[in-house]
């Protein structure tokens, strides 16, 4: 019965279900769902569906206008639907088995993403002066999207193995160094926005892990220093910064995008000018279907639309952080806090930039903007959070990435996988305390 329950997609291992498990098999599964699980799923699906509509609205006009009406107005909608569907499958699977797999593969994921971050600088496709994509013919992937995920996974794993690490800068150092290296590679692309997101997301993990305020302030100052330095050496970033600080100065030049975003929002008023009726997406707003989608939302659906989007993200954040609080182990807690923060930070940076509260950095609105890599990665992250929400846990791998310095052996990961399966089918698996993770670590170090 529990196997069937799994197949149908309902959490079979919530506390309530676990209690009744042996007597009443698979009964009242809906009641077994934690509220935050449903909230999270609802917010995600709403944002996703809303995003598809807005991507279509924002992209169809320019699609039609660009090629004299010959190109497919639904091109971006179709791709969003395709990748959205694929992403939902990924999310669905991850929500069941993702946590174990992700933790086990963290070293590999981190290694691969660092490798891709180096590779993209060599063989990447350059669009608008940024080398962010690797073209695999049928699909383009954005290594920095994978890197965001990898660093949060790594940070959570590292800090969960030995919570005391979070208490000192020394302890955090491996995490800071890896994050710094990845961020540096992303900055070189250049993609300062994503680098900042990575930094903030890892920072949120550190906060959740209980890092001392003194250390956090020091890290924040260092981050600010580097960001400022990077801005000063790069003319186009400088132009964006001055454009932000003094938007009226050059409305036709660097301030153009910011000014157009404001015009889009303002002309939407309270209720917007109607979905699909926006004019600003017709080349006034650059990247209307990606970075500037919230401006299109503001124009077409007004303040109501913006409040709706912010509301959905708030709901997502509340649910995500509730999941973190209720996680059964430190790893789950840290991972969920990190992943939720990752998505919320992106949303915040995007909305701040569009609202003219921060310089434009080219960050898409997660789940809403067009962007295939981002969509897949985000849905994978949501899947992981859902897995934790269902009471899932993952034991630490035998090898520690930094301390051990070697990639996990194939043999070991396979045996670990087998052990996981056993633990899951054994009803007490969810009851395994955080100690289990520590035990694993001890075994590894010992």
């Amino acid at each position, binding site marked *: 019965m529990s196997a069937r329950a799994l197949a149908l997609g309902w959490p079979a291992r919530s506390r309530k279900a676990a209690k009744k498990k042996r007597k009443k098999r698979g009964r009242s599964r809906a009641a077994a769902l934690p509220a935050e699980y449903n909230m999270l799923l609802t917010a995600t699906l709403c944002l996703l569906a809303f995003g598809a509509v807005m991507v279509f609205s924002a992209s169809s006009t320019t699609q039609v206008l660009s090629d004299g009406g010959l190109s497919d107005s639904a091109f971006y909608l179709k791709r969003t639907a395709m990748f959205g569907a694929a992403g939902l499958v990924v999310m669905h699977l991850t929500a069941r088995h993702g946590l174990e797999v992700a933790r086990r593969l963290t070293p590999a994921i981190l290694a691969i993403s660092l490798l891709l971050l180096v590779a993209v600088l060599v063989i990447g496709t350059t669009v608008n002066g940024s080398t962010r994509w690797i073209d695999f013919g049928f699909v383009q992937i954005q290594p920095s999207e994978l890197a965001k995920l990898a660093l949060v996974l790594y940070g959570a794993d590292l800090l969960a193995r030995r919570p005391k690490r979070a208490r000192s800068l020394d302890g955090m150092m491996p995490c800071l160094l890896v994050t710094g290296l990845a961020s540096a590679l992303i900055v070189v692309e250049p993609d300062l926005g994503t680098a900042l997101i990575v930094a903030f997301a890892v920072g949120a993990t550190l*906060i959740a892990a209980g890092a001392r305020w003194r250390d956090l302030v020091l890290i924040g100052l260092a981050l600010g220093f580097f960001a400022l330095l990077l801005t000063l050496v790069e003319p186009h970033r400088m132009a964006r910064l001055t454009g932000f600080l003094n938007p009226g100065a050059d409305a036709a030049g660097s301030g153009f995008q910011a000014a157009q975003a404001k015009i889009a929002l303002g002309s939407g008023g309270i209720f917007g000018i109607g979905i699909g009726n926006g004019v600003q997406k017709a080349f006034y707003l650059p990247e209307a279907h990606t970075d500037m989608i919230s401006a299109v939302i503001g124009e077409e659906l007004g303040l109501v639309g913006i409040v709706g989007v912010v509301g959905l993200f708030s709901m997502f954040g509340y649910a995500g952080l509730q999941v973190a609080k209720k996680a059964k182990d430190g790893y789950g807690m840290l991972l969920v806090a990190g992943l939720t923060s990752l998505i919320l930070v992106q949303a915040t940076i995007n909305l701040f930039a569009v609202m003219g509260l921060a310089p434009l950095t080219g960050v898409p609105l997660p789940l809403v903007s067009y962007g295939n890599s981002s969509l897949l990665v985000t849905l994978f992250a949501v899947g992981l959070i859902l897995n934790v929400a269902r009471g899932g846990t993952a034991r630490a791998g035998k090898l520690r990435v930094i301390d051990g310095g070697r990639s996990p052996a194939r043999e070991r990961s396979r045996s670990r996988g087998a052990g996981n399966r056993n633990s899951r089918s054994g009803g007490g698996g969810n009851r395994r305390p955080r100690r289990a993770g520590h035990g694993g670590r001890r075994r590894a170090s010992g």
Partner: protein
Amino acid sequence: MRTTERRIGLLFAGFLLCFLVVVGRAAWLQGVQGAQLASEAAYQQTEVVTVPGLRGSVLDRHGNPLAVSEDAATIFATPYQVKDPVAAAAKLAPILEKDGDEILRSLTGGSGFSYVAHKVDMPTAARIARLELAGIGQLPDSRRTYPQGQLAAQVIGAVGAESQGLTGLEAGRDSVLRGTDGERRIVKDALGEPIRLETVTEASDGRDIQLTLDPAIESKAERVLAEVGAAYSPKGATAIVVDPRNLRVLAMANWPPVDPTDLTDVDPENLINRATGFTHEPGSTFKAFTIAAALEEKLVTPESLFTLPPAIQVADRTIEESHARGTVTMSVAEILAHSSNVGAVTVGLQLGGERFSRWIGRFGFGRPTGVQFPAEERGIVPALDEYSGSTMGNLPLGQGLSVTPMQMVAGYAAIAAGGVLRRPQLIEAVDGEPVPKPSGHRVISASVAADLRTMLEGVLAPGGTASEVSVPGYTLAGKTGTAEVAEDGVYSETKYVASFIGFAPARDPRLLVAVTVDQPQGDIYGGSVAAPAFGKIAAFALPYLGVPPG
């Protein structure tokens, strides 16, 4: 564990704060600054253009167009945006059929805007648009076209650059014909391409005016006048053709012709519709009214005989015949047929100034006929208290007063149509609605009118002043006029107005034609200059209108 929960709560609080800032900022931008930003959006996204309301058409009596408006384009230049003015001018010149240098000047002017060509037809405008020349733009406009060319040009009139009526009915009926411009808002993308059109105010086209003019008769009349023009080189000439039964104007021709599409270098005098705008002393054609008055006052009958000396003295003036003769005895009918000056004055003196003055008024002289044509002249008729001793030696001959050809037509139509004077009708319908038929009023009895028609037949009979003119199968009636032009109070020895007014069939008139020729050269007599023109027009129009011979 407490720390963790507190930290997570802190994270959530942090994000919530950020989101509240976002919502606050959105409320500021979309609520408080919304109106202003919306106007900025409108400023960069939209453009309001004028959509011209097309001017109404002028139609002939069959409803076929004489003047119509169609969409056109005005080509303008923004000189500083024109990349290669010489090359651009060389491309535009053959398409616009204009002088290349002239176009070049408009492309190189110092201002930011200059007109290259006005009222270009749409196919030509499309060819220019396909050239995709930088700095050359188009504005919607309309142009007036004339499917019948210069036909009735003085009657229809001309329009100006703003499609406003300048002359003729275009000016007189401007309020009817004029369309109301509308406004259209164009929503553009950032590259300036239109993505949406919204109508702000609908343009409404002007109303059509249907005339009573018959294009075939008009055309014939104009051709006949052209022959007169070629033969006698007059200053000008006009022919009016009406149906005397209802006084509908079938033709109102003028010579010399004008081109309504190009008024440059046109003598303003030739733009005048002489039918209503040319005042002249009528001369002998007026004698019919003198006789009509005497008949109606029962002073004479057509058979009354008068012994007429070669000349007659009235106060300080001596009236002679145009061709000297001895003393003769003439009937009233003969006085009219031979156009005897002495006879007409004799009859006029029998009437006396007071009665005669009243009769001039009754026949409508000194007042516009009300033919619905703008700026109709009323002529000059001396008031009774202005009469001098010699006045009654002039007026019965058609001297000492001035009239328009239209007034003469109205008066003769009363004789032809059984004694009822009507207002001439030039406009049949406005916007498809027939205009009310003018009602007439009786000025002379039907029997007097019949007597006059019989007498006027004599003019074209052997011995009459227009005896050479005939139309096979039809009996004609009419009167010649050869009036000296008064210049500075003295009658000219060389300048005459030759005229003829006639109708047919004489017993049951269905057609009335008046031909007035101003200052013909070579020949001066109404009988030889104007009467043959009447004959030609009648010979065409009678069978054309299906008038049974008689």
